């Protein structure tokens, strides 16, 4: 026993600086900062970001770099291969392809971004309400049920059928396409949001907020939405290219924006007849731009997803 107390005397109690121990030594890294560092490290995602930036800038200034308007016809200058005057060549009506390509970028990007934002807004509202009301008494369950049935019905209709039918009632144009794309597009977003909410609202901090009497709207806005922001942004980077693709698809079958407005889809469609006669530039430039944009959004979205996923962080 004596030895034990001897041994004990060899140990000296450490001075307790309880506050010091709890102190966070390094400065806090905000989530958005970590996300950005992580994306900058991902070369492919960085490339995607740069490509998107260039396309957006060119969509803004591109048409102004040449003295031709996107709709100016010059029948004597039809079907010219790319040269120093017409950098991307001209189409059969002598319209400058450079100007049309970047003008088309404006149209495609506008449609993509607008449709995706509307999708996300409606999806958030419907999915949020549905997920939040689920399990909240009889009325709550009923609301959830009705909304989810609606989503299910919309989900099982091929979206192109709805879009095509809608495009027929309304006057073809930019606005119509955006509306038509968002009428069916919000469904998958609503499903994702609902699933997230169902998961998040079981968390302790939500229970704590509820016990403290925080009103519903505050719980949704302050606790649930911020925690879903990552998934929403990632979804945005996949929704935008889908909308751009859908627009080109519709324009391609003749239901998109109407002449003389150019979109990448209509330009590809116009080029279909001449591709075999060797006028490669008619299909190449708009087609390449669509593919490049889809590529950039996809790799950027992938990078963002990895960056926001805490499991893949090192």
């Amino acid at each position: 026993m004596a030895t034990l107390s001897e041994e004990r005397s060899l140990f000296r109690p450490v001075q307790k600086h309880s506050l010091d121990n709890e102190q966070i030594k390094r400065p806090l890294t905000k989530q958005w900062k970590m996300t950005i560092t992580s994306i900058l490290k991902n070369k492919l995602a960085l490339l995607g970001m740069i490509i998107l930036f260039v396309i957006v800038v060119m969509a803004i200034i591109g048409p102004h770099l040449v003295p031709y308007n996107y709709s100016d016809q010059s029948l004597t200058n039809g079907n010219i291969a790319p040269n120093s005057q017409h950098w991307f060549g001209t189409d059969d009506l002598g319209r400058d392809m450079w100007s049309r390509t970047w003008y088309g970028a404006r149209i495609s990007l506008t449609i993509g971004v607008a449709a995706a934002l509307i999708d996300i807004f409606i999806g958030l509202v419907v999915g949020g309400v549905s997920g939040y009301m689920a399990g909240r008494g009889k009325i709550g369950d009923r609301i959830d049920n009705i909304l989810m049935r609606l989503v299910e019905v919309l989900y099982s209709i091929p979206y192109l059928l709805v879009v095509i039918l809608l495009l027929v009632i309304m006057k073809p144009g930019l606005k119509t396409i955006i509306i038509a794309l968002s009428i069916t597009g919000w469904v998958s977003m609503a499903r994702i949001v609902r699933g997230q909410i169902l998961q998040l609202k079981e968390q302790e901090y939500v229970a704590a907020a509820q016990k403290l009497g925080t009103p519903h709207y505050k719980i949704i806005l302050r606790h649930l939405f911020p925690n879903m922001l990552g998934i929403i942004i990632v979804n945005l980077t996949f929704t935008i290219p889908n909308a751009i693709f859908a627009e080109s698809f519709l324009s391609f079958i003749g239901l998109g924006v109407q002449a003389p407005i150019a979109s990448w889809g209509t330009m590809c469609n116009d080029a279909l007849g001449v591709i075999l006669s060797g006028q490669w530039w008619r299909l190449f430039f708009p087609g390449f731009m669509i593919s490049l944009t889809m590529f950039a959004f996809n790799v950027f979205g992938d990078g963002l997803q990895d960056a926001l996923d805490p499991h893949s962080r090192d």
Partner: protein
Amino acid sequence: MLILKRFIMMAVTIWVIVTVTFVIMHVIPGDPFASDSTNYPPEVLANMRSAYHLDEPLPIQYVDYLRDLCTLDLGPSIEFKSRSVNQLIADGFPASALLGLQALVIAVFFGLLFGIVAALNHNGIVDYIVMGLAIIGISVPSFILAPLLIKYFSVEWKLLPVASWGTWRHSILPSLSLALMPMAIIARFIRSSMLEVLNQNYIKTADAKGIGIVSIIVKHAIRNAIIPVISFLGPLIAALITGTFVVEKIFAIPGLGKYFVDSIFNRDYPVILGTTVFFSVVLIIVLFVADLSYRLIDPRIKLSSKGD
């Protein structure tokens, strides 16, 4: 019981689709004879309208349509005189279905193959090549790929027919251009879920027991890795069905998609309704089968009446 509930849900969905399409269609200004109105005297037009019951009040037309639908009669086509919508679908659907199915088989088979090969070669050269190609595949839409395929395979190298429909050789290029994007998506999906599965303990156990790599992959890994792909099959098939519109147009294939798009421009009411209903029914059945196959592949998943 749950299956019965699903069937009721499916019937309700179809009814909603029919009703919405019917309403939308009649809101469209103009009717099937609007473009003929300068060529025929009004009495003739009135006769033509009454021949197709277009002069009756809308509710009666609606009830009539639903009654005929129950006997699977989709009515006559107005644009294609003396042919019924059923005939049009019978004419057009085989080509569309063959195209879609071929594309689906190509996409699923090669998507699985490439995804698995990439996963087994994780971070190796093969992995990078396959995933690089997959990203390109996701980025290039079918309506850009198709003209390129025609240009090289048909015009420059003269290996395959340029367009039209008939022999098996005609269907190669359209199926390929339709299959590329879903193939790339499947390959990416399978790769990431394979990587996850290959790290599981049961795979290591199987490996430690000396079971060969082939049988580990076939019996243990694929079955678990394929679940996310199946949840993607429903929307994929929908995309293939509607995607055929474009491919049919480029390759001049007499399929159903062409009839559908044409019918909208022609205001051919019965064809619009008929093809929409038909497409939707096909899709709903496909989604249902996809849900069922979930359960066959993974018995842990229960068939539920909810969407998730």
